[in-house]
Protein backbone atom coordinates (compact mmCIF):
# COMPACT_ATOMS: atom_id res chain seq x y z
CA UNK A 1 0.00 0.00 0.00
CA UNK A 2 1.37 3.40 -0.93
CA UNK A 3 1.31 6.19 1.59
CA UNK A 4 -0.93 9.21 0.94
CA UNK A 5 1.42 11.53 2.80
CA UNK A 6 3.40 14.06 0.78
CA UNK A 7 4.45 17.71 0.77
CA UNK A 8 2.49 20.60 -0.75
CA UNK A 9 4.41 20.62 -4.02
CA UNK A 10 3.86 16.91 -4.57
CA UNK A 11 0.19 17.37 -3.77
CA UNK A 12 -0.07 20.21 -6.29
CA UNK A 13 1.80 18.14 -8.89
CA UNK A 14 -0.85 15.43 -8.53
CA UNK A 15 -3.49 17.74 -10.04
CA UNK A 16 -3.03 17.75 -13.82
CA UNK A 17 -3.75 20.56 -16.24
CA UNK A 18 -7.36 20.38 -17.55
CA UNK A 19 -8.55 18.69 -14.34
CA UNK A 20 -12.10 19.12 -13.08
CA UNK A 21 -11.36 20.35 -9.57
CA UNK A 22 -13.97 20.57 -6.78
CA UNK A 23 -13.38 23.12 -4.02
CA UNK A 24 -15.49 24.09 -0.98
CA UNK A 25 -17.04 27.41 0.00
CA UNK A 26 -14.98 29.94 1.93
CA UNK A 27 -16.25 29.13 5.42
CA UNK A 28 -15.55 25.38 5.39
CA UNK A 29 -11.79 24.96 5.01
CA UNK A 30 -10.32 26.07 1.69
CA UNK A 31 -6.86 24.71 0.83
CA UNK A 32 -5.23 28.09 0.20
CA UNK A 33 -1.64 26.93 0.78
CA UNK A 34 -2.19 24.20 -1.78
CA UNK A 35 -3.75 26.78 -4.12
CA UNK A 36 -0.53 28.76 -3.85
CA UNK A 37 1.43 25.64 -4.80
CA UNK A 38 -0.89 25.15 -7.80
CA UNK A 39 -0.31 28.70 -9.03
CA UNK A 40 3.43 28.22 -8.53
CA UNK A 41 3.42 25.15 -10.69
CA UNK A 42 1.52 27.13 -13.34
CA UNK A 43 -1.44 24.80 -13.59
CA UNK A 44 -3.60 25.57 -16.64
CA UNK A 45 -7.15 25.17 -17.98
CA UNK A 46 -8.77 23.97 -14.76
CA UNK A 47 -12.51 23.35 -14.66
CA UNK A 48 -13.26 24.55 -11.14
CA UNK A 49 -16.44 23.23 -9.52
CA UNK A 50 -17.35 25.47 -6.57
CA UNK A 51 -19.22 23.56 -3.84
CA UNK A 52 -21.40 25.46 -4.08
CA UNK A 53 -19.64 28.87 -4.08
CA UNK A 54 -16.12 30.21 -3.91
CA UNK A 55 -14.33 33.43 -3.03
CA UNK A 56 -10.68 34.39 -2.94
CA UNK A 57 -9.51 30.93 -4.04
CA UNK A 58 -11.40 31.01 -7.35
CA UNK A 59 -10.58 34.67 -7.87
CA UNK A 60 -6.84 34.08 -7.43
CA UNK A 61 -6.82 31.02 -9.69
CA UNK A 62 -8.73 32.96 -12.38
CA UNK A 63 -6.50 36.02 -12.05
CA UNK A 64 -3.38 33.86 -12.31
CA UNK A 65 -4.62 32.35 -15.58
CA UNK A 66 -5.20 28.85 -14.22
CA UNK A 67 -8.92 28.47 -15.03
CA UNK A 68 -10.73 27.76 -18.32
CA UNK A 69 -14.18 26.99 -16.88
CA UNK A 70 -15.88 27.87 -13.64
CA UNK A 71 -18.98 25.99 -12.52
CA UNK A 72 -20.57 27.75 -9.57
CA UNK A 73 -23.62 29.28 -7.97
CA UNK A 74 -21.60 32.33 -6.94
CA UNK A 75 -18.10 33.75 -6.69
CA UNK A 76 -17.73 36.69 -4.32
CA UNK A 77 -15.58 38.09 -1.55
CA UNK A 78 -18.39 38.26 1.01
CA UNK A 79 -18.15 41.41 3.12
CA UNK A 80 -15.33 42.60 0.87
CA UNK A 81 -17.45 42.84 -2.25
CA UNK A 82 -17.36 41.38 -5.74
CA UNK A 83 -14.62 39.02 -6.91
CA UNK A 84 -12.71 41.40 -9.19
CA UNK A 85 -10.66 38.96 -11.28
CA UNK A 86 -13.71 36.73 -11.81
CA UNK A 87 -15.80 39.70 -12.98
CA UNK A 88 -13.00 41.01 -15.21
CA UNK A 89 -12.38 37.62 -16.85
CA UNK A 90 -16.09 37.25 -17.66
CA UNK A 91 -16.22 40.75 -19.11
CA UNK A 92 -13.20 39.96 -21.33
CA UNK A 93 -14.78 36.71 -22.51
CA UNK A 94 -11.72 34.85 -21.25
CA UNK A 95 -13.59 32.58 -18.87
CA UNK A 96 -16.31 30.03 -19.56
CA UNK A 97 -18.96 30.01 -16.86
CA UNK A 98 -21.54 27.40 -15.94
CA UNK A 99 -23.86 29.47 -13.76
CA UNK A 100 -25.81 27.26 -11.39
CA UNK A 101 -27.65 27.31 -8.10
CA UNK A 102 -26.39 25.79 -4.83
CA UNK A 103 -28.74 22.79 -4.53
CA UNK A 104 -28.15 21.80 -8.17
CA UNK A 105 -24.40 21.57 -7.53
CA UNK A 106 -24.98 19.54 -4.38
CA UNK A 107 -27.40 17.31 -6.31
CA UNK A 108 -24.94 16.76 -9.17
CA UNK A 109 -22.29 15.66 -6.70
CA UNK A 110 -24.76 13.44 -4.89
CA UNK A 111 -25.60 11.74 -8.20
CA UNK A 112 -21.90 10.99 -8.70
CA UNK A 113 -21.61 9.84 -5.08
CA UNK A 114 -24.39 7.32 -5.72
CA UNK A 115 -23.17 6.29 -9.18
CA UNK A 116 -26.29 7.74 -10.79
CA UNK A 117 -26.39 9.56 -14.15
CA UNK A 118 -28.49 12.47 -12.86
CA UNK A 119 -30.47 13.78 -9.92
CA UNK A 120 -33.85 15.55 -9.95
CA UNK A 121 -33.95 18.97 -8.29
CA UNK A 122 -36.93 21.15 -7.35
CA UNK A 123 -37.25 24.78 -8.38
CA UNK A 124 -35.20 26.34 -11.22
CA UNK A 125 -38.03 26.15 -13.82
CA UNK A 126 -38.39 29.49 -15.60
CA UNK A 127 -34.96 30.67 -14.55
CA UNK A 128 -32.54 31.86 -17.26
CA UNK A 129 -29.98 29.52 -15.68
CA UNK A 130 -31.48 26.44 -17.28
CA UNK A 131 -31.44 27.96 -20.77
CA UNK A 132 -27.63 27.97 -20.64
CA UNK A 133 -27.06 24.51 -19.23
CA UNK A 134 -26.72 21.61 -21.66
CA UNK A 135 -26.21 19.36 -18.63
CA UNK A 136 -29.62 20.23 -17.16
CA UNK A 137 -32.97 19.25 -18.64
CA UNK A 138 -36.64 19.06 -17.68
CA UNK A 139 -38.24 15.67 -17.13
CA UNK A 140 -41.71 14.60 -16.07
CA UNK A 141 -42.18 13.08 -12.66
CA UNK A 142 -42.59 9.40 -13.69
CA UNK A 143 -44.93 8.75 -10.76
CA UNK A 144 -47.29 11.73 -11.08
CA UNK A 145 -48.52 13.44 -14.23
CA UNK A 146 -48.01 17.14 -14.96
CA UNK A 147 -45.16 17.65 -12.52
CA UNK A 148 -42.08 18.89 -14.39
CA UNK A 149 -38.80 18.47 -12.54
CA UNK A 150 -35.29 19.63 -13.45
CA UNK A 151 -32.74 16.83 -13.88
CA UNK A 152 -29.08 17.76 -13.44
CA UNK A 153 -26.35 15.55 -14.81
CA UNK A 154 -23.95 13.98 -12.32
CA UNK A 155 -20.90 16.10 -11.47
CA UNK A 156 -17.88 13.82 -11.22
CA UNK A 157 -14.78 15.88 -10.48
CA UNK A 158 -11.34 14.45 -11.18
CA UNK A 159 -10.09 15.86 -7.91
CA UNK A 160 -11.58 17.24 -4.68
CA UNK A 161 -9.29 19.63 -2.77
CA UNK A 162 -9.90 21.06 0.71
CA UNK A 163 -8.29 21.85 4.06
CA UNK A 164 -9.18 20.06 7.31
CA UNK A 165 -8.09 20.15 10.95
CA UNK A 166 -6.25 16.82 11.11
CA UNK A 167 -5.60 13.37 9.72
CA UNK A 168 -4.31 10.23 11.38
CA UNK A 169 -1.46 8.02 10.19
CA UNK A 170 -4.00 5.73 8.50
CA UNK A 171 -5.05 8.54 6.17
CA UNK A 172 -8.42 9.12 7.85
CA UNK A 173 -9.33 12.82 7.78
CA UNK A 174 -11.34 14.68 10.44
CA UNK A 175 -13.84 17.14 8.93
CA UNK A 176 -16.25 17.68 11.84
CA UNK A 177 -19.51 19.27 10.71
CA UNK A 178 -18.18 20.19 7.26
CA UNK A 179 -20.19 17.41 5.66
CA UNK A 180 -19.87 18.73 2.11
CA UNK A 181 -16.23 17.61 2.21
CA UNK A 182 -17.41 14.01 2.50
CA UNK A 183 -19.75 14.39 -0.49
CA UNK A 184 -16.94 15.99 -2.51
CA UNK A 185 -14.54 13.20 -1.57
CA UNK A 186 -16.98 10.45 -2.46
CA UNK A 187 -18.11 12.12 -5.70
CA UNK A 188 -14.58 12.72 -6.99
CA UNK A 189 -12.10 10.28 -8.50
CA UNK A 190 -9.34 11.50 -6.20
CA UNK A 191 -9.39 13.47 -2.96
CA UNK A 192 -6.46 15.68 -1.98
CA UNK A 193 -6.44 17.15 1.51
CA UNK A 194 -4.25 19.55 3.43
CA UNK A 195 -4.40 19.39 7.23
CA UNK A 196 -3.18 21.43 10.16
CA UNK A 197 -1.55 18.37 11.69
CA UNK A 198 -1.18 14.60 11.65
CA UNK A 199 -2.39 13.10 14.93
CA UNK A 200 -1.58 9.83 16.68
CA UNK A 201 -4.22 7.16 17.11
CA UNK A 202 -7.09 6.08 14.87
CA UNK A 203 -9.74 8.77 14.31
CA UNK A 204 -12.30 6.12 13.40
CA UNK A 205 -11.81 4.48 16.81
CA UNK A 206 -12.76 7.69 18.61
CA UNK A 207 -16.55 7.54 19.17
CA UNK A 208 -16.79 11.31 19.62
CA UNK A 209 -15.09 12.07 16.33
CA UNK A 210 -15.69 9.10 14.04
CA UNK A 211 -18.96 10.48 12.59
CA UNK A 212 -16.98 13.50 11.38
CA UNK A 213 -14.26 11.49 9.64
CA UNK A 214 -13.64 10.75 5.96
CA UNK A 215 -12.29 7.18 5.86
CA UNK A 216 -8.85 6.91 4.28
CA UNK A 217 -10.20 4.77 1.45
CA UNK A 218 -11.46 7.96 -0.23
CA UNK A 219 -8.33 10.01 0.41
CA UNK A 220 -5.57 10.02 -2.23
CA UNK A 221 -3.04 12.49 -0.82
CA UNK A 222 -2.51 14.40 2.42
CA UNK A 223 -0.06 17.25 2.99
CA UNK A 224 0.48 19.15 6.22
CA UNK A 225 -0.06 22.91 5.93
CA UNK A 226 -0.15 24.96 9.12
CA UNK A 227 -2.76 27.72 8.76
CA UNK A 228 -3.40 26.13 5.39
CA UNK A 229 -6.68 28.01 4.89
CA UNK A 230 -5.17 31.46 5.51
CA UNK A 231 -6.30 34.17 4.82
CA UNK A 232 -9.60 32.29 5.13
CA UNK A 233 -10.53 30.60 8.40
CA UNK A 234 -10.93 27.04 9.54
CA UNK A 235 -14.10 26.36 11.58
CA UNK A 236 -13.33 25.85 15.24
CA UNK A 237 -9.64 26.60 14.76
CA UNK A 238 -9.07 30.11 13.45
CA UNK A 239 -11.07 32.99 12.02
CA UNK A 240 -10.63 34.59 8.61
CA UNK A 241 -7.92 37.29 8.53
CA UNK A 242 -10.14 40.25 7.72
CA UNK A 243 -7.21 42.65 7.21
CA UNK A 244 -5.59 40.32 4.67
CA UNK A 245 -8.90 39.69 2.87
CA UNK A 246 -9.61 43.43 2.71
CA UNK A 247 -6.15 44.01 1.32
CA UNK A 248 -6.71 41.42 -1.39
CA UNK A 249 -10.09 42.92 -2.35
CA UNK A 250 -8.50 46.35 -2.79
CA UNK A 251 -5.41 45.12 -4.63
CA UNK A 252 -7.25 42.84 -7.05
CA UNK A 253 -9.48 45.64 -8.37
CA UNK A 254 -6.87 46.28 -11.08
CA UNK A 255 -4.82 43.78 -13.08
CA UNK A 256 -1.61 45.48 -11.94
CA UNK A 257 -2.66 45.49 -8.29
CA UNK A 258 -3.54 41.82 -8.52
CA UNK A 259 -0.18 40.98 -10.12
CA UNK A 260 1.69 42.77 -7.30
CA UNK A 261 -0.40 40.95 -4.69
CA UNK A 262 0.22 37.62 -6.41
CA UNK A 263 4.00 38.12 -6.59
CA UNK A 264 4.12 38.87 -2.88
CA UNK A 265 1.89 35.91 -2.00
CA UNK A 266 3.95 33.50 -4.09
CA UNK A 267 7.17 34.80 -2.52
CA UNK A 268 5.80 34.04 0.96
CA UNK A 269 5.56 30.41 -0.02
CA UNK A 270 9.10 30.33 -1.37
CA UNK A 271 10.29 31.83 1.92
CA UNK A 272 8.54 28.99 3.70
CA UNK A 273 6.08 31.33 5.41
Amino acid at each position, binding site marked *: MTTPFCDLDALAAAIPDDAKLAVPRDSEGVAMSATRALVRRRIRRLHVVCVPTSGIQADVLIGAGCVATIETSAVGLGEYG*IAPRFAAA*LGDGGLRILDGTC*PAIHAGLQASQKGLPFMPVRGI*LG*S*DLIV*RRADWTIIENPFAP*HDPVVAVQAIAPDVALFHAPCADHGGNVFIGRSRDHLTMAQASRECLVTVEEIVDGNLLADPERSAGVIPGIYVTRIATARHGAWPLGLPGHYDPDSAALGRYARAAKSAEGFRAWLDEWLAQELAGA
Partner: protein
Amino acid sequence: MARRVAGAGARRSVTASSTELLIATIARLLEGCRSVVIGNRSPIPGSAALLARELSGGALRLTILGSRRFSDFTNGGVETFDRAAQGRIDAFFLGGGQIDGEANINLVGTGEYPRTEVRWPGSYGSAYLYFLVPKVILFREEHTPRVMVRKVDFVSAPGTSAPGVHRPGGPWKMLTGLGLFAFDRSRKRFTLESVHPGHTVDEIAAATGFDFDRPARAATTPAPEPRVLGLIRGKIRDEIAETYPRFAAALTA
Protein backbone atom coordinates in the same frame (compact mmCIF):
# COMPACT_ATOMS: atom_id res chain seq x y z
CA MET B 1 -24.18 55.20 9.08
CA ALA B 2 -27.75 56.21 8.97
CA ARG B 3 -30.13 59.04 8.90
CA ARG B 4 -32.10 59.03 12.14
CA VAL B 5 -35.88 59.26 12.29
CA ALA B 6 -38.03 60.29 15.21
CA GLY B 7 -39.41 57.53 17.41
CA ALA B 8 -42.70 57.77 19.22
CA GLY B 9 -43.99 57.28 22.73
CA ALA B 10 -40.75 57.50 24.67
CA ARG B 11 -40.18 59.50 27.82
CA ARG B 12 -36.75 60.53 26.63
CA SER B 13 -36.06 61.35 23.00
CA VAL B 14 -35.52 58.07 21.24
CA THR B 15 -34.54 58.02 17.59
CA ALA B 16 -34.00 55.01 15.39
CA SER B 17 -31.53 54.91 12.54
CA SER B 18 -32.79 53.71 9.18
CA THR B 19 -30.94 50.43 9.80
CA GLU B 20 -32.75 49.98 13.11
CA LEU B 21 -36.08 50.74 11.44
CA LEU B 22 -35.42 47.99 8.87
CA ILE B 23 -34.42 45.50 11.58
CA ALA B 24 -37.55 46.22 13.61
CA THR B 25 -39.79 46.06 10.52
CA ILE B 26 -38.42 42.69 9.43
CA ALA B 27 -38.76 41.34 12.97
CA ARG B 28 -42.45 42.28 12.85
CA LEU B 29 -42.85 40.42 9.54
CA LEU B 30 -41.31 37.31 11.13
CA GLU B 31 -43.87 37.22 13.98
CA GLY B 32 -45.38 33.76 14.18
CA CYS B 33 -42.66 32.05 12.12
CA ARG B 34 -41.33 28.85 13.67
CA SER B 35 -38.23 28.39 11.59
CA VAL B 36 -36.12 30.94 9.75
CA VAL B 37 -32.83 30.57 7.88
CA ILE B 38 -30.66 33.57 7.11
CA GLY B 39 -28.47 33.38 4.01
CA ASN B 40 -25.05 34.80 3.28
CA ARG B 41 -24.25 38.50 3.51
CA SER B 42 -27.43 39.38 5.40
CA PRO B 43 -26.58 41.34 8.55
CA ILE B 44 -29.88 43.27 8.69
CA PRO B 45 -32.14 40.21 8.17
CA GLY B 46 -29.86 38.32 10.58
CA SER B 47 -30.27 40.97 13.27
CA ALA B 48 -34.01 41.08 12.61
CA ALA B 49 -34.37 37.32 12.96
CA LEU B 50 -32.40 37.40 16.23
CA LEU B 51 -34.75 40.15 17.41
CA ALA B 52 -37.83 38.17 16.34
CA ARG B 53 -36.45 35.15 18.19
CA GLU B 54 -35.95 37.24 21.31
CA LEU B 55 -39.48 38.72 21.09
CA SER B 56 -40.94 35.22 20.50
CA GLY B 57 -39.45 34.02 23.77
CA GLY B 58 -37.35 31.49 21.87
CA ALA B 59 -40.24 29.93 19.91
CA LEU B 60 -38.61 30.95 16.63
CA ARG B 61 -35.79 28.63 15.62
CA LEU B 62 -33.05 30.29 13.70
CA THR B 63 -30.04 29.34 11.63
CA ILE B 64 -27.68 32.02 10.38
CA LEU B 65 -25.43 30.75 7.60
CA GLY B 66 -21.85 31.60 8.46
CA SER B 67 -22.54 31.45 12.20
CA ARG B 68 -21.41 28.62 14.43
CA ARG B 69 -23.41 29.73 17.45
CA PHE B 70 -26.69 30.15 15.59
CA SER B 71 -26.67 27.00 13.53
CA ASP B 72 -28.12 23.61 14.27
CA PHE B 73 -27.12 22.17 10.90
CA THR B 74 -25.13 18.96 10.97
CA ASN B 75 -25.48 17.90 7.35
CA GLY B 76 -23.54 20.56 5.48
CA GLY B 77 -24.71 22.97 2.83
CA VAL B 78 -27.45 20.67 1.56
CA GLU B 79 -29.38 20.91 4.81
CA THR B 80 -30.80 24.37 4.05
CA PHE B 81 -32.20 23.06 0.78
CA ASP B 82 -33.46 19.76 2.14
CA ARG B 83 -35.25 21.53 4.98
CA ALA B 84 -36.79 24.02 2.54
CA ALA B 85 -38.04 21.25 0.26
CA GLN B 86 -39.74 19.57 3.21
CA GLY B 87 -41.48 22.76 4.31
CA ARG B 88 -39.34 23.08 7.43
CA ILE B 89 -38.37 26.70 6.71
CA ASP B 90 -41.08 29.36 7.03
CA ALA B 91 -39.20 32.44 5.87
CA PHE B 92 -36.09 33.32 3.91
CA PHE B 93 -34.57 36.51 2.49
CA LEU B 94 -33.45 37.14 -1.06
CA GLY B 95 -32.13 40.27 -2.69
CA GLY B 96 -31.16 41.18 -6.19
CA GLY B 97 -28.92 43.45 -8.17
CA GLN B 98 -32.12 43.98 -10.14
CA ILE B 99 -35.72 43.33 -9.10
CA ASP B 100 -38.63 43.87 -11.48
CA GLY B 101 -42.35 44.47 -11.06
CA GLU B 102 -43.17 40.75 -11.41
CA ALA B 103 -40.70 39.98 -8.60
CA ASN B 104 -38.17 38.37 -10.93
CA ILE B 105 -34.71 38.73 -9.40
CA ASN B 106 -31.29 39.01 -11.02
CA LEU B 107 -28.20 38.15 -9.00
CA VAL B 108 -25.99 37.48 -12.03
CA GLY B 109 -25.29 40.80 -13.76
CA THR B 110 -26.26 43.42 -16.31
CA GLY B 111 -25.73 43.48 -20.06
CA GLU B 112 -25.43 40.70 -22.57
CA TYR B 113 -24.88 37.41 -20.72
CA PRO B 114 -22.36 35.85 -20.29
CA ARG B 115 -20.10 38.82 -21.16
CA THR B 116 -21.76 40.92 -18.50
CA GLU B 117 -20.96 44.62 -18.09
CA VAL B 118 -21.46 44.41 -14.35
CA ARG B 119 -21.07 40.95 -12.86
CA TRP B 120 -22.45 40.10 -9.41
CA PRO B 121 -21.46 36.93 -7.53
CA GLY B 122 -24.23 34.67 -8.85
CA SER B 123 -27.60 33.17 -8.12
CA TYR B 124 -26.67 31.25 -4.92
CA GLY B 125 -29.70 29.18 -3.81
CA SER B 126 -32.27 31.66 -5.10
CA ALA B 127 -33.50 29.59 -8.07
CA TYR B 128 -34.55 26.92 -5.59
CA LEU B 129 -35.50 28.62 -2.32
CA TYR B 130 -37.75 31.14 -4.14
CA PHE B 131 -39.94 28.18 -5.11
CA LEU B 132 -40.03 26.35 -1.80
CA VAL B 133 -40.03 28.77 1.14
CA PRO B 134 -43.57 30.06 1.78
CA LYS B 135 -42.60 33.55 2.93
CA VAL B 136 -39.73 34.89 0.88
CA ILE B 137 -38.99 38.48 1.83
CA LEU B 138 -37.16 40.46 -0.84
CA PHE B 139 -34.80 42.78 0.95
CA ARG B 140 -32.77 45.43 -0.81
CA GLU B 141 -31.81 48.62 0.97
CA GLU B 142 -30.96 50.50 -2.23
CA HIS B 143 -34.23 51.60 -3.83
CA THR B 144 -33.28 53.29 -7.09
CA PRO B 145 -34.28 52.96 -10.75
CA ARG B 146 -31.15 50.90 -11.47
CA VAL B 147 -32.26 48.26 -8.93
CA MET B 148 -36.05 48.43 -9.30
CA VAL B 149 -36.21 47.88 -13.04
CA ARG B 150 -39.02 47.32 -15.53
CA LYS B 151 -37.52 43.98 -16.55
CA VAL B 152 -34.44 42.22 -15.19
CA ASP B 153 -31.54 41.53 -17.61
CA PHE B 154 -31.21 37.95 -16.34
CA VAL B 155 -33.73 35.88 -14.39
CA SER B 156 -31.86 34.14 -11.57
CA ALA B 157 -35.21 33.16 -10.11
CA PRO B 158 -38.69 33.97 -11.48
CA GLY B 159 -41.22 35.71 -9.24
CA THR B 160 -44.09 33.53 -10.41
CA SER B 161 -44.57 30.20 -12.18
CA ALA B 162 -47.02 28.64 -14.58
CA PRO B 163 -49.82 26.53 -13.10
CA GLY B 164 -48.65 22.96 -12.55
CA VAL B 165 -45.16 23.93 -11.40
CA HIS B 166 -44.50 22.69 -7.87
CA ARG B 167 -44.22 25.96 -6.04
CA PRO B 168 -45.38 26.11 -2.42
CA GLY B 169 -43.27 29.23 -1.91
CA GLY B 170 -42.48 32.58 -3.45
CA PRO B 171 -42.26 36.31 -2.90
CA TRP B 172 -44.38 37.60 -0.03
CA LYS B 173 -43.08 41.06 0.91
CA MET B 174 -40.42 43.43 -0.33
CA LEU B 175 -38.65 45.79 2.05
CA THR B 176 -36.38 48.55 0.79
CA GLY B 177 -34.78 51.62 2.27
CA LEU B 178 -37.88 53.60 1.27
CA GLY B 179 -40.87 51.39 1.99
CA LEU B 180 -42.58 48.07 2.50
CA PHE B 181 -44.46 46.29 -0.30
CA ALA B 182 -46.67 43.19 -0.48
CA PHE B 183 -46.60 40.93 -3.53
CA ASP B 184 -49.73 39.38 -5.03
CA ARG B 185 -48.67 36.17 -6.78
CA SER B 186 -51.87 35.77 -8.82
CA ARG B 187 -51.83 39.34 -10.11
CA LYS B 188 -48.02 39.43 -10.38
CA ARG B 189 -47.90 42.88 -8.81
CA PHE B 190 -46.49 44.72 -5.84
CA THR B 191 -48.65 46.91 -3.62
CA LEU B 192 -47.08 49.60 -1.46
CA GLU B 193 -47.98 48.89 2.17
CA SER B 194 -46.11 51.59 4.04
CA VAL B 195 -43.65 54.39 3.51
CA HIS B 196 -40.72 54.81 5.86
CA PRO B 197 -40.67 57.99 7.98
CA GLY B 198 -39.17 60.89 6.09
CA HIS B 199 -40.08 59.55 2.64
CA THR B 200 -43.08 59.96 0.33
CA VAL B 201 -45.09 57.92 -2.15
CA ASP B 202 -44.01 60.23 -4.96
CA GLU B 203 -40.37 59.73 -4.05
CA ILE B 204 -40.86 55.94 -4.15
CA ALA B 205 -42.66 56.10 -7.49
CA ALA B 206 -39.82 58.17 -8.96
CA ALA B 207 -37.25 55.66 -7.70
CA THR B 208 -39.09 52.64 -9.09
CA GLY B 209 -38.78 51.51 -12.70
CA PHE B 210 -42.00 49.49 -12.63
CA ASP B 211 -45.64 50.12 -11.92
CA PHE B 212 -47.08 49.11 -8.56
CA ASP B 213 -50.39 49.51 -6.76
CA ARG B 214 -50.73 52.09 -4.05
CA PRO B 215 -53.44 52.79 -1.53
CA ALA B 216 -55.19 56.16 -1.61
CA ARG B 217 -53.45 57.04 1.61
CA ALA B 218 -50.21 55.19 2.38
CA ALA B 219 -49.40 54.24 5.97
CA THR B 220 -46.12 55.18 7.62
CA THR B 221 -43.83 52.33 8.64
CA PRO B 222 -43.97 52.34 12.46
CA ALA B 223 -40.79 53.35 14.27
CA PRO B 224 -39.45 50.77 16.76
CA GLU B 225 -40.62 51.01 20.36
CA PRO B 226 -38.00 51.97 22.95
CA ARG B 227 -37.82 48.41 24.30
CA VAL B 228 -37.15 47.03 20.82
CA LEU B 229 -34.57 49.72 20.17
CA GLY B 230 -32.85 48.81 23.43
CA LEU B 231 -32.67 45.18 22.38
CA ILE B 232 -31.23 46.04 18.97
CA ARG B 233 -28.53 48.18 20.57
CA GLY B 234 -27.73 45.65 23.28
CA LYS B 235 -28.37 41.93 23.11
CA ILE B 236 -28.98 41.73 19.36
CA ARG B 237 -25.88 43.74 18.52
CA ASP B 238 -23.82 41.38 20.68
CA GLU B 239 -25.36 38.30 19.08
CA ILE B 240 -24.92 39.42 15.46
CA ALA B 241 -21.30 40.41 16.16
CA GLU B 242 -20.23 36.77 15.98
CA THR B 243 -21.16 36.62 12.28
CA TYR B 244 -20.94 40.29 11.26
CA PRO B 245 -18.41 42.07 13.49
CA ARG B 246 -18.04 45.12 11.25
CA PHE B 247 -21.81 45.56 10.99
CA ALA B 248 -22.26 45.14 14.76
CA ALA B 249 -19.60 47.74 15.51
CA ALA B 250 -21.59 50.24 13.44
CA LEU B 251 -24.82 49.47 15.35
CA THR B 252 -23.98 51.77 18.21
CA ALA B 253 -26.43 53.40 20.56
